[in-house]
């Protein structure tokens, strides 16, 4: 699946990284706890979260996450979006809740990676 596929499945808006949508993603992780993300996330991942602070961008950076999706209509501010752009990170936003957004991507073939 590409980031663009994920965007289309969720009907998400692109807030940063418009030119980076053709990257492949292999797994996803949904959490508001960054330490859990750091423990379990894989390469070429999407991170779905409702948490909106600079540590989300830094966590994504440490893990080489490809795309951040803010769920529940959360709106990152300009500082966060600028941080994301500097790091070549795609940022999407969807009104779907966490459970629904994860379910839609899972149904489309994206998984959470091996346990």
């Amino acid at each position, binding site marked *: 699946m590409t980031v663009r596929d994920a965007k289309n499945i969720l009907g998400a808006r692109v807030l940063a990284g418009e030119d980076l949508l053709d990257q492949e993603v292999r797994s996803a992780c949904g959490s508001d*706890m960054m330490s859990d993300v750091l*423990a379990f996330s894989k390469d070429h991942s999407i991170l779905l979260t409702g*948490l909106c602070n600079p540590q989300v961008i*830094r966590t994504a950076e440490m*893990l080489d996450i490809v795309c951040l999706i803010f769920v529940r209509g959360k709106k990152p501010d300009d500082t966060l979006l600028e941080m994301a752009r500097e790091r070549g990170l795609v940022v999407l936003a969807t009104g779907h809740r966490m459970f629904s957004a994860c379910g839609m991507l899972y149904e489309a073939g994206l998984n959470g990676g091996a346990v």
Partner: protein
Amino acid sequence: MEDAIVLSYAISGEDFTRAGEASSDVKKKLKQMGVSPEAVRKVAIAMYEGEINMVIHANGGEITVTITPEEICMVLDDVGPGIPDVDLAMQAGYSTAPDEIRSLGFGAGMGLPNMKKYTDSMEIDTRIGEGTKITMVVKI
């Protein structure tokens, strides 16, 4: 060691939003040096967790990263309260972080376990009321 490169960072305990800047810088430098992506990722995750811990629990401290052709050694030194029970702190899910930190996405009790998981060795030297020194090594 002739080939060693040493990077030092003073970590401020005042501003949680800036926590992780040192780890971010180390990650960038290691990438530029051509260190393998796998080793860079391990160092970045382990140091970031440690840096966050310093800000949450110890009001900041100092991080020294020494890079040689064989390994990357991170020393995280703080003058915080110390860890009363290291075995307990190493248990996944155990945390003493306040609720306000949890609302910022940390304090899940995964910090120390993650640091151990992503490094080849980790030593904790802690003294109550004096501080904690954590030494982590990732082999290249």
